[in-house]
């Protein structure tokens, strides 16, 4: 009898649950779309990402590195949309291909530091005790160092190269994610439904994977998008001072640095990568703010 009841009840419950989730998702997108600046950010970012991904279809890869000293410092024109630099390279091609590099660095550093932060943060927040104390003291030490200086010293120790840059920036950012995730996990562990799950005999692994991590996702997404623009700028700053991405890979920060000395004579050499950094960081920021507002339960109407 009880079995029958359960079987009968389950589909209805399940449907209700699904509806709730769907409604929740729908509400998130609705709130996001109501936010005009977030939509603007989303559109800009889509265009940038689209251009970066399809670059090889409409700009030949060679255009990025082909040097021709007969066309040095040509001002923007029909042939060279953003002009050319001191080597006679097409800046437009370099900026577009540079978007791949910048976005790849930003997204992968966020992914790596999120993952590392998640492991450490959940560990600290859920286990507490000595593990928490030790990890958090290390995190505190790391956070005392200015991010640029810290990643600079890691790059200096590891040497140049894109993967080393990604690793350096990821290490720098991990403490920030660990902090946020730990705080979220700590507030979650005292929730009634976790107590209930525990009382039902759920394993720690089950609780973490099914109850804690899914409920952490909101703050993680917010933290990730907001930090994404910071990653773009941090990577550009490191390349600007000559640490990180090595030629001939076009990187916006390195392009800025190369154009710096001709800033007055040929402003387009710095203008194009500079604007690219600003617009990309801005669009990510707008979108990030929008997502934060949309996910914030207090903003619900």
């Amino acid at each position: 009898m009880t079995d029958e009841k359960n079987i009968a009840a389950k589909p209805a419950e399940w449907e209700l649950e699904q509806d709730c989730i769907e409604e929740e998702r729908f509400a998130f997108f609705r709130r996001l779309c109501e936010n005009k600046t977030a939509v603007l950010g989303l559109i800009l970012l889509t265009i940038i990402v689209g251009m970066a991904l399809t670059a090889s279809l409409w700009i030949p890869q060679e255009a990025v590195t082909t040097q021709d000293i007969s066309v040095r410092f040509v001002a923007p024109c029909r042939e060279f949309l953003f002009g050319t630099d001191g080597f006679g390279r097409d800046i437009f091609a370099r900026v577009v291909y540079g978007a791949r590099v910048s976005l790849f660095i930003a997204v992968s550093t966020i992914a790596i530091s999120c993952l590392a932060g998640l492991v450490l943060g959940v560990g600290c927040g859920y286990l507490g005790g000595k593990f928490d104390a030790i990890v958090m003291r290390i995190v505190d030490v790391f956070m005392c160092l200015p991010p640029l200086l810290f990643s600079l010293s890691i790059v200096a120790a590891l040497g140049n190269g894109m993967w080393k840059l990604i690793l350096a920036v990821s290490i720098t950012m991990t403490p920030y994610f660990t902090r946020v995730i730990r705080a979220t996990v700590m507030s979650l562990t005292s929730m009634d439904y976790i107590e209930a799950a525990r009382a039902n005999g759920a394993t720690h692994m089950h609780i973490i994977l099914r109850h804690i991590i899914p409920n952490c996702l909101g703050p993680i997404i917010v933290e990730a998008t907001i930090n994404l623009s910071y990653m773009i700028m941090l990577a550009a700053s490191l390349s600007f001072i000559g640490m990180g991405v090595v030629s001939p890979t076009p990187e916006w920060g390195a392009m800025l640095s190369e154009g710096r000395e001709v800033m007055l004579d040929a402003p387009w050499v710095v203008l194009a990568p500079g604007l690219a950094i600003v617009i990309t960081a801005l669009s990510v920021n707008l979108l990030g703010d929008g997502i934060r507002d949309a996910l914030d339960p207090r903003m619900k109407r």
Partner: protein
Amino acid sequence: MKKALAAILTLAMLFSLAACSSGNGSADEGEGATEPRNDLTVILSSEFTTLDPQKLSANASINFCSNIFDGLVALDEENNVVPMLATDWEISPDGLDYTFHLREGVKFHNGNDLTAEDVKLSVERFRDNEWMAFASFAVDSCDIVDDYTVTIHLKFPYGNFLSMLWYCYIIDSDHYNSLSEEDFARNPVGTGAYQFVEWAPAQYVTLKANPDYWNGAPHIENLRFNFVSDSNTAMMALNTGEADLSFGVTPLNYKQAVEGGKLATDSTTGNNFYYINFNCDRISKEVRQAISYAIDRETFNVVINEDTGYLSDIALTEGQEGYTTDLTTYPYDPDKAMELLEQAGATDLSLTFYYDESSANTKMAQTLQSQLGAVGIELILEPVESGTWWSTFGNGDYDLSRSGYPMEAANTDSCYYDMFHSTGSFNVSRINNPELDALLDEARRELDSEKRNEIYIQVNQIMAEEAYYIPLYFSASLLVYNPDLQGVHALTSQNYQYKDMHW
């Protein structure tokens, strides 16, 4: 509302600042028109670490110090050895002993007389300090004959000795003995045309005229040297009249100054020779020759020097010992390069290029990468900071690198031995050729200039044939200055004497 107000205020402040600075500039010009100025502000692009004349590590500080100190001899603009603190000298028949007669009545800035004691101390410090080994390697000892006569004994007869002796500035022995090494390095006292006043590290050095200078008092009373490493900032200072002279601007800024027409400019061949060097331990002769054909030096000169440099097949200028045009050259020919690479069985090469990070070197690296890419060689760039660069040279962990060497105007030996002898301290190509070593050793001890010339021609021919390095160019010596300043023109050595300048 508040924000708008703040923005307006900020703008207003900026404008008033701009107005103030231009106001100051015109006031200066007005003064200059009525009575001649007696001060001069020079921009130095690098800071010194010491003003101890026997520990100077860079050309810039050696040249700077020639205004505070005098040597026994000096080089004139035609690179002849001329008397300074020594009025004349005798050389023993075996070429080992040089006896110098000192100028009498010369006083140091602190009032002490110049005597043989001071020269002995200076020569001994010159000999003992590692930094000066490039110039002092032949010195064995120094004896005082009387108060105004000294004899310098050499380890071996060295024909070029006098042309390197100007590097030995004479210091006051009493002053030296009364101070610790550290204080001595910060308080230079010499016999030169200017005396030291103040040194604010990383900011400026000031000097004032020595009215009792034995060779005539300088025209300009006060000298100020500002350290400005960024060329754009230096140009701005020159344009606003904050500074009057700079010989360290980039070729690009120089071009702007020429086109701008507001500032006076002058240029001549510089003495810094730039080349791309192979690690000869790793790269075979055939591949070196092939790569040499793949290099278009013209492009390097345009990209790095805005076409101001002087292309050269050889690390010498016309008139120097060993200068010749009769040697193997490698004109730009990428097809031939690829053919040679194939013959050498070196297709799909991947090489590393080590360089110390700077704007010019980054340009060089990217140009090289592109040109080698065109003949199918992948070049991996390894930019490092200069300390690492030096240690990498030591352990030889590179395929290619780049270097610049300040060539001596009147001495082929010291540079060639340093750069190309297997024991040379700047043998960055890691050359180890017994034949070459024997020739360089022979030339070093050869007293006859004509014979030395022949040996160095042979040396140059061997090196060109072996393609140990890819010669690029001599950089230009560029000078940008206030058009009211007189008695100034660009010098190859950049050893500017402010004593001769006037308004």
